[in-house]
């Protein structure tokens, strides 16, 4: 079975997943570990928690929901991530609807697992 917090030494990439729904976030973390066993997943359920983690760690990839819980709150995380030095292409915004976002933000429609997996694989080369 797939684990999300296995031996860190065997895992090359630190990935942050952000969603305000804890149950959905756990599923997301399990999925991430299934498609990329070489990642170590951290999770955050609020903007503040995400910002604290971004300040404390260097993430290879950040995937955030756009609405956590308010629409657009994900943009605060995007800005903090870019300031922390993460390439814009290594930040993926998930949206349950097709919200208008700045061009520089990489948007994947929530539920489009093929597009999400492609984006993850491209970011973690």
């Amino acid at each position: 079975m797939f684990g999300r917090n296995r031996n860190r030494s065997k895992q090359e990439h630190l990935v942050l997943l952000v969603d305000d729904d804890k149950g959905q976030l756990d599923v997301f973390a399990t999925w991430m570990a299934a498609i990329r066993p070489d990642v170590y997943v951290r999770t955050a359920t609020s903007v503040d928690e995400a910002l604290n983690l971004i300040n404390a760690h260097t993430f290879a990839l950040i995937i955030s929901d756009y609405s956590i819980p308010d629409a657009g709150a994900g943009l605060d995380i995007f800005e903090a991530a870019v300031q922390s030095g993460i390439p814009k292409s290594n930040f993926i915004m998930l949206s349950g609807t097709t919200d208008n976002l700045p061009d520089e933000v990489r948007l994947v429609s929530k539920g489009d697992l093929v597009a999400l997996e492609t984006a993850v694989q491209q970011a973690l080369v």
Partner: protein
Amino acid sequence: MTDKEEAAREDYAEQSRQLEQLLLQRQKWLGDASHELRGPLNAAAMSLNVVTRRDDLPDGVHATLRNAERHLLHMSDLVRDMFDTAKLENDAFELAITPDVPVHEIVEEITAEFAANPDVLSLRSVPDRTITATLDRDRIRQVVRNVVSNAAKYRQVGKQATIAVLLHRIDDAYFEIVVDDTPNGLGMTKSDLEALESGQPFWRAEAAKTVASGTGLGIQLSRKLVERSGGQLRYDSEFGSGTTAAIRLPYNLQPDTET
């Protein structure tokens, strides 16, 4: 202006303000409802996706779980398309227009996304890299993704899709993104094309229903998005051969040209 006229003017302004607020509230509700409905559906689909990656599943279980995953994602897409369609019909929908968008980037992004799709045998992209346009990048990307996704899905039984995506100039005012899935595409009959042109939501060609799941909303939503962007989405098709979809758009979409 008399006192009566002044009072009427103020009353009109107040009603306009209240109406604008109601429209904003409705837009927010549509967005929130879509988000809340899709979340659990996606989590369930993601869970099934994890399980189907295991190679120790009993015979038949893998296919059954994949089928369940597909149905969940289908329902999720349906929710998204329904809410987007409602927004468009209620005019609670704004385009985020960006100047000087290199259109080839949209084409290349979508072709890269579908190149790894196991249902696609070949995906050729021929973009004119000099074309830039003032448009809503996200929405046009959504349209191109929908059209390419249909080309990948609706193919002849037992065949993989062969897709060509072209980007070229039409004249000084318009350019075109063409998605061609011949010769392996499913294609549509003349009556299918007429039904498609009628713009009925949820309509799907009978042959299409037998090869892939879908909502019938994405294609109509794409058409509305293109029209809202000052353009036209046209289809040319032959059943058993494939379909050519042409997305014609203006170089310069002005806010006051939105309809």
